[in-house]
């Protein structure tokens, strides 16, 4: 009967000792990890690991496995995209910077060039040209008041320009013809008001 309390006390002491040992070992491991991270060869070691075929294989395995599905689920579950876009939208300047740098990047330029040169664009254009809806749309735009007004304005502007030139030249011709007439009839140059004189 006396042995039972002693046994339980002994067990408690043993658990405490093992817990303290685990704690000490954990702290020692962390110190060791810090030392390892600060070690001057660590960076090189990490670089070699990452550029090794083993890392490729590991990434391949990870991408083939359920990890990607799990990540996608978590991205959707925790609204990661919404949060990121929300943050970007809140900071307008940052958003503009990100979009601007993305658009100006050579990669985007290359992609755009590839899209333009690809058969895809030709196919899209061909299909669009075959579509009746496109021609309906073009018809609508061509007959829209804005377009007809613009064409009308341009025509009026051109006609006015031509008429303006005709007016200027006719006034010069008026003066010239009068000079000739005066010379022929041997009349002195009267103090006539000619448009050209007044313009001067």
């Amino acid at each position, binding site marked *: 009967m006396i042995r039972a309390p002693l046994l339980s006390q002994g067990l408690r002491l043993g658990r405490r000792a093992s817990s303290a040992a685990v704690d000490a070992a954990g702290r020692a491991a962390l110190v060791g990890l810090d030392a390892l991270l600060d070690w001057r060869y660590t960076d090189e070691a990490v670089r070699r690991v990452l550029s090794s075929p083993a890392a490729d294989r590991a990434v391949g395995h990870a991408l083939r496995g359920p990890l990607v599905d799990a990540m996608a689920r978590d991205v959707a579950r925790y609204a990661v995209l919404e949060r990121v876009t929300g943050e970007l939208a809140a900071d307008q300047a940052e958003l503009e910077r990100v979009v601007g740098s993305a658009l100006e990047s050579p990669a985007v330029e290359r992609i755009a060039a590839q899209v333009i040169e690809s058969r895809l664009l030709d196919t899209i254009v061909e299909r669009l040209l075959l579509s009746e809806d496109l021609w309906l749309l073009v018809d609508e735009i061509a007959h829209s008041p804005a377009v007809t007004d613009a064409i009308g304005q341009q025509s009026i502007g051109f006609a006015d320009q031509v008429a303006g030139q005709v007016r200027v030249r006719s006034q010069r011709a*008026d003066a010239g*013809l*009068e000079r000739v007439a005066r010379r022929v009839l041997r009349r002195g140059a009267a103090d006539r*008001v000619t*448009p050209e004189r*007044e313009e001067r």
Partner: protein
Amino acid sequence: MTVTQAAVSVGAQAAAPPAPAAPRPKYAGLVTRALAFAVDAAIVDLTGGFVGVVVGLALSVLKTPDEVDKLLLAIGGVLFVLWTISYFVAFWSTTGQTPGNRVMRIRVRRSDSDEPLRMRWALVRLVALALAAIPLLLGFLPILLNERRRGLQDLLGRSVVVHAPLG
């Protein structure tokens, strides 16, 4: 009126700035007026011609005697003359600008004021225009020599033709 009031009045009149002189009109020359008249003649002739063609086509399906044709031709001629008279008289006596004048930015007005011609003077001017054309267009010669660029039709119609820029 007291002496003081009279003195103030005289002083005020003396101090009043002189009224700005009216700008001297720019009279339109022969070439400009001829171009404007050409535009008007084109409008009158094309309109008359179009109406004549339409009426002629309509009548061509009917078998009408020669006498009737001649009568219709005479009526058409009279109508054309009336149309021509109406065209010029109406424009000269209202805005002073025919469409041709509008294109060339000139305006017919009275010789003594800035008003458009009265209807009867517009009519006189049109008759004088025809008279000026009869002797080998010699009636238009004064436009080249006259100080105010007035031809026979302007002298008889008491009119001048001035430049009328828009605005």
